[in-house]
């Protein structure tokens, strides 16, 4: 607050920021919840539904999202082409194999408020299946959103020292 000019402060308050979110081993619903907050602009104290204060969100590693339970086999995405006999139902697995960004895209789309601003907010969402991002987007990134789920460590991710330091609970 101390040494900013009025113009600089105005610029910093109303500028559109770019956020990064890593979706590796995360549930897509939680990813969508975190992005929707940023896309709407609800994380800002100057939020108003009509003031178009949403930010950009770049989601990487959408190919490596993780559904809990049996949702890969049980969750069904339905659509209708509009033609008779055109009701299509696809499982989450099939949809993910066809398009690795589709699940996160649908999750975010369905979580946004159902108004005319939804389409503009979806244009500010950028999805990438791996962690390869175009250079111009990479230059814009400001901050990384923390991952919603704490990823547990696998057994091979522990160092041998940590494994040796853990006491043997029973002796053979």
């Amino acid at each position, binding site marked *: 607050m101390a040494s900013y000019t009025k113009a600089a402060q105005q610029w910093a308050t109303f500028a559109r920021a770019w956020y990064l979110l890593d979706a590796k081993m995360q549930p897509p619903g939680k990813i969508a919840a975190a992005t929707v907050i940023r896309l709407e602009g609800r994380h800002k104290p100057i939020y108003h539904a009509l003031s178009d204060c949403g930010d950009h969100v770049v989601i990487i590693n959408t190919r490596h*999202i993780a*559904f*809990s*339970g*049996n949702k890969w086999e049980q969750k069904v995405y339905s659509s209708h082409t509009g033609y008779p006999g055109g009701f299509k139902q696809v499982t989450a*697995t099939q949809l993910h194999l066809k398009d690795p960004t589709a699940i996160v895209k649908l999750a975010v789309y369905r979580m946004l408020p159902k108004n005319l601003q939804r389409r503009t907010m979806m244009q500010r969402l950028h999805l990438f299946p791996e962690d390869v991002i175009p250079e111009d987007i990479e230059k814009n990134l400001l901050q990384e959103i923390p991952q919603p789920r704490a990823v547990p460590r696998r*057994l091979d991710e522990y160092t041998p020292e940590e494994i040796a330091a853990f006491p*043997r*609970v*029973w002796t053979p």
Partner: protein
Amino acid sequence: MAAPSLLRGGLRRLFAGLWGRGWASPPARALREVVEVTEGNTTTIEGKIIEDAAAPTPPNPSGQCPICRWNLKHKYDYVDVLLLSQFIRSDGGMLPRRTTGLCLEEHKKIAVCVQMAHRAGLLPNHRPRLPEGHTPKKPKLNRPGNTSEEKLRCPMICSCIRSHLGYLLKLFQDR
């Protein structure tokens, strides 16, 4: 039917000990290392007992099972792979209770946690050995969460909160 066969087995074991060199003591339980020594014509293959460094004393030595002895009764979860990996074989199956010394309820809880850890992919090197060069046909997808039926048997829920299951299942899905 069980009683006569038990008696027969027990009696046979008693008599085998007597017929041998008197009362033979049961073999000591320890990890053994196979040592092969060749002296001239003779090759001796022996299982030498590995003398471990003295294990640290557990905080509660008067417990019946390892979990009680180390005061871990309601303290572990499927993510504590360092603990769970001590009770599994190299192909991912559980070790029998008579070997590990766990009490029945803890053995069941650990089994559930091990199953959850396998489904979450936290034990990648404890897979069952597949015959020949069998390649998995299904596409590999991350599924770290656990089915609700497993969560119902999970120790963190078993402890005292079965009555508030619905609300708390949501809480545990946030972990």
